């Protein structure tokens, strides 16, 4: 797959294993494509996370650090509401950024091969009713579906919200359902780094 190829090249660039032609071509693409630059950042963070052996135990320890930092902040909600969050929360967010972006990227890479983009090809001729124009639910960048195709992510977001509502009476971790929705925006975080 094309994405796999580019992924391999970015990885090789990061490891200094890219031949000269590929190196030049990839740099040209990096100049032109923000997504690719994002991928490069993720590789760097993956490397950092691997070197630091980041795992759940580590992030639990981080949680305690975050807790103490949060407790030091007064009226944090008010600060967020007045659009000062990025400056004031930076020390807190920094920890989460490293962990979250690395994990995002790792998960995304692991599963990349499972996915294939398809155009719907009707298997038989059907009468299709005209579909009304609707506002399309935006792709909320704070959610972390590991596949980035916008339309797929939109629909998955919608399904997730709906599923959470229908099943919250069953799930022992119902609150997590909503934590996913309200979750941290790692895409913006990495671009802000």
């Amino acid at each position, binding site marked *: 797959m094309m994405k796999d190829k580019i992924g391999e090249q970015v990885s090789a660039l990061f490891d200094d294993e890219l031949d000269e032609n590929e190196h030049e071509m990839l740099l040209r693409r990096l100049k032109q494509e923000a997504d690719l630059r994002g991928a490069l950042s993720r590789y760097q963070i993956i490397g950092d996370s691997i070197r630091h052996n*980041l*795992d*759940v135990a580590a*992030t*639990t320890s981080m*949680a305690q650090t975050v*807790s103490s930092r*949060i407790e030091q902040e007064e009226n944090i909600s008010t600060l*967020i*509401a007045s659009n000062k*969050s990025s400056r004031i929360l930076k020390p*807190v*967010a920094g920890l*989460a950024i490293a*962990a979250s972006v*690395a994990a995002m990227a*790792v*998960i995304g890479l692991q599963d990349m091969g499972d*996915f294939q*983009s398809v155009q*719907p090809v*009707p298997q*038989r001729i059907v009468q*299709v009713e005209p579909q*009304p124009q609707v506002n399309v*639910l*935006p792709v*909320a*960048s*704070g959610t*972390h579906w590991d*596949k980035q195709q916008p339309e797929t992510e*939109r*629909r*998955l977001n*919608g*399904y*997730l*919200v*709906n*599923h959470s509502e*229908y*099943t*919250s*009476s*069953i*799930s*022992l*971790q*119902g*609150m*997590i*359902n*909503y*934590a996913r*929705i*309200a*979750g*941290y*925006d790692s895409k913006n975080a990495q671009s802000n780094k």
Partner: protein
Amino acid sequence: MLFFVRQVTLILFCVMTMPAFASKNDPEAKVWLERMSHAIKTLNYEGVFVYIHGKQMETMRIVHKNVDGEEQERLLSLAGTPREILRNNDRLICILPDVKSVVVEKSRPKNYLPIGLQHITKNIKRYYHFHMGGVDRMAGRDAVKIDVLPKDSYRYGYHLWLDKKTAMLLKSDLVNEEGDPVEQIMFTHIDIKDHIETDKLEPTISSDGYKWFKQEKSEQVEKTSSQWAVKKLPAGYMKGMQKKHGLPMSRMPVEHLMYTDGISSVSVYIEAMNKAKPMMKGFSKIGAVNAYTTIVADYYVTVVGEVPKATVKFIGEYVHFNPGKD
């Protein structure tokens, strides 16, 4: 707290209505789960918790209030783009500043999923173990641990830490068959109070100028006959409901089938294909939620649930379309 209340209602019902099972496992676990159910529903509290999945961590503030049985809840992300979720008995509102949007879903009744409950409660012991897991300390409070562990690879298990004094849930680990954590939530701080000020449940993010996306179509009644069915399910899962309804993202009705084993649950969403909005086939995941999309006839079929990848694939592959029905 609505988020917690709904999550435990059914499993508590399951445990309470199967004394034979409870006695074979740990009866004390049953008592603690009953207390937890009451605590999370009736307590007023505010706190900060972390949500960890894989190597990713997110920090949330939560406020919960119960006045005369009416619950209100507010969840706010504290890192990155501020995002807020407000919930009461009627509506779930997601305020998403990063995309200047507000998404509104109708809240579901607390006692949803009546179908199959009796069967599930009788059989849940075949699929999970329930045990007391000792004592610990969480969020600065003494805690007891309860383990709910799966017996096969089609469902996750849970380790729950409850406040020794109030039985409030302080930490929850969702684990796979090997016992490895898939997702965790942990309160780093929690205040349990007599009273929560009303302004603490007001949104702090202004939604002026945002687009609103509402679930506009009212839900249709339960379907007794449909062109869609899942021909085979992983052991222990039963159909909880099946209906057509709207979603905030689309005005076209979506066929929705829901399956549960009493603790784990899976939704199947079926939408007519639209050339202008192609979906990707295959797997995706967000935290412990796995999704699997495939095409059946001329429809996208997407299976979503807090279950292992194997479960969504299993169910997705047995979705069957019968054009002669409906």
